[in-house]
């Protein structure tokens, strides 16, 4: 997990996204503990309230839960839920700008789809 100083979004959102990625990637498995507010504050040199806000958003959105006196844990089923959330956001975050740029460059839809397939083949 890394913070990007060029990224002008609020730090708590970057913390939230970083933790989400770590859950998706399996770094924090379901039913295991995620870093505490104190640890996040130390490692990233950020205000603990900011770190707490990032963590609490994960709790509020139902991906994590609090064990009183111990810490925050990844909920069972959180990975699937996160995937759903990201899939919903995919269109807005990735497809819309892609299509906009393609239109600006007069790239036809057929070409675009063909290129995506070609790129996928090249990756496999």
């Amino acid at each position: 997990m890394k913070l990007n100083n060029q990224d002008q979004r609020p730090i708590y959102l970057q913390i939230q996204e970083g933790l989400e990625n770590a859950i998706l990637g399996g770094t924090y498995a379901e039913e295991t503990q995620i870093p505490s507010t104190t640890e996040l504050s130390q490692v990233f040199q950020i205000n603990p309230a900011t770190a707490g806000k990032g963590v609490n958003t994960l709790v509020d959105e139902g991906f994590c839960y609090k064990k009183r006196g111990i810490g925050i844990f990844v909920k069972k089923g959180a990975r699937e839920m996160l995937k759903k959330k990201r899939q919903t956001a995919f269109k807005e975050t990735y497809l819309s700008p892609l299509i906009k740029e393609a239109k600006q460059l007069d790239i036809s839809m057929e070409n675009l789809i063909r290129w995506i397939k070609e790129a996928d083949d090249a990756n496999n």
Partner: protein
Amino acid sequence: MQTIKVCDVSKNYRDVLALNKVNLELQAGKIYGLLGRNGAGKSTLLKIIADRIRPTSGQILYDGKTVLDDSTSRQLYFSEPDKTFPELLKVKELCYYTSQFYPKFNLDEVQQILQNFGINEKKRLNQLSTGNFAIVRSIVALQTRAGFIFLDEPTLGHDAVNRELFYNEVLRIYREEQNTIVLSTHLIDEISNLLEEVIFIDRGQIFLEDNLDNIITSHLYITGPSEQIERIERSYSVIEKKENLGFVSLLIRPTSVTPDLPDGVKTSRAGLQDIFIAYSKKKDK
């Protein structure tokens, strides 16, 4: 102490109006950034809060009381860049005397921290470089673990490595004490990650005061071709307008999170420093 309230405080130095009817409430348990340009009134405000100088008008309320008595003054510490300590004092002696007034002061811990910064505590204050003096006074200030710690230009003269060590120390003390730490500086981007609340001051007046995340999320740059931007410009309160090469960039406070914008107009976030500069320029006009 739970709150410090600044009520209608003004300060004149002869003809110069250093503070102009400032109102502010500082709450317990937060890190504040008091940000402003040189001569904005940061130090004057802090000196008045710490009762080093008197306001020309207005008053400071400590938990509702106008007077700093002995027990409340132990809950407040102010560290300023001016050399107010006897200059022949040794670092060790400064620590000792401070610990006599602030009961949580841990002499062994300070010794260790100053060693990490490579400072010899047997030195006299007047033998320290500007940077090392700034470290000593800031570390001593934090170690008082007072409920309200005011650090005026804490990193003046620090090199990059020491600034990093110092910021870690600010956060460590804050995590342990949950106290209020007010950092006054003009190095905005560097400390922004430490802050919870931001106070912007310019020409003796506070012109923006809010939670850091609120400030960041409530401002937006919109950039696009001149004619497009000019068509929508009026619907927003514009803080700054930059024009170059046929493109116009506006810093706005949109009323909704995702304003409805025409094609070709792009949005981007502004950093705390950008926002500060934009407001300062606006006031210049």
